[in-house]
């Protein structure tokens, strides 16, 4: 699934605002004075990148990593024993 092509000329300020996730960041961005719509500034290009598909794949990746890690916590904590259980026999507890 491809998103729109990242060309500066096609973008306007309104289109940049459409993605909810970047709305707040966009307002901050406006205040910095870096935003010069229509110009090929580094900040503009960066913003387009952030807004498009990087977000989805990257966010999904972070979430997936967190989920796998959490599963690992659960499983391994069950497998592992504290030493008072691991090193005790019915005859000896030292």
């Amino acid at each position, binding site marked *: 699934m491809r998103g729109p092509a990242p060309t500066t000329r096609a973008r306007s300020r309104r289109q940049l605002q459409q993605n909810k996730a970047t709305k707040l960041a966009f307002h901050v961005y406006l205040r910095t004075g870096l935003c010069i719509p229509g110009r090929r500034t580094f900040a503009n290009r960066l913003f387009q990148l952030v807004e*498009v*598909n990087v977000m989805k794949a990257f966010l999904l990746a972070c979430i997936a990593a967190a989920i796998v890690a959490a599963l690992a916590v659960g499983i391994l904590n069950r497998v592992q024993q504290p030493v008072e259980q691991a*090193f005790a026999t019915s005859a000896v507890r030292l």
Partner: protein
Amino acid sequence: MAFFGKYLRLVLGACAFLLIIATSTPSGAQQVNPTASSVKEQQLLQELNRVQGRVSIPDQRSGVLEQPAGRDWREFRNVTLRWIGGIAILGMLAMLAIFYLSRGMVRLESGRSGRSIVRFTAFERFVHWMTATCFIILAISGLNITFGRPLLLPLIGFEAFSEWSQWAKYAHNYLSFPFTIGVVLIFLMWIVGNIPNKVDVDWLKRGGGLVGHDHPPAYRFNAGQKAIYWIVVIGGAAVAGTGYELMFPFYLSGIEGMQLAEIVHSVVAVLFVAAMLAHIYIGTVGMEGAFEAMGSGTVDINWAKEHHRLWLEEENARTGANDARPQPAATAAE
């Protein structure tokens, strides 16, 4: 007369008794060493480099009385590893800085065409970013174990540093699982495009276009990328394998094995970090039009022509079109 005899026997008996006592006192020359045949510490250390025996404690690992190899490991970990890591990482950063200052960003010579072609699917990008994000956190938490104490601890103090290190250790241990899954998926996903061939030899001979304005042809992955692929797969397997051995202490090996696992894990890891710095550089600052391959999944046609010409030709032949599929939004905007 009889009385005198009894008295004489008494005296003789007493003298004999005293004589026995006197001669039975131990003197130096008659001493026995009951432990003459026992082992000596230095002998055991020389023969086996460890001293081990039997214990009545259920944890049989406590039967190792002495393992001086721990001191060698300490020397490696505190001195040698820090040198290796420092030189590898700082050296790579210096090389990248020099390269950027002299060559600058590799620009698209023919500029952007406005048309693009899909380079990586969403799944490929997902796997890459999962592995990459985990790698960043694993690298930082891992480097903290080696370099945190001399570099960071003096800045933030004991309590804060311990707290940070504790969480870093948890992150390191648990993010290893998604990282390993990612490396396995990367291995399977991209093995087809990463088998070295003759084109790679030519590419390398022409320096990959690093110097000057050469554009040696390449398929989907050029020789530099293939090198990164194999570093990730082989290095990733090495750190994952030794890492799990470290996370399951003494399941697979004794103490020498654990020390060796730590050595291999740390050396491979610092070299891995150095290699990834170069990869991150070329994928972001180092080359125009490169990041979007993994960012949005599509690259500009001119970028594909200049850097992966043979791959572009393959893709065109596959889709049966002369040009790549143009983006509707792009043509509409123009």
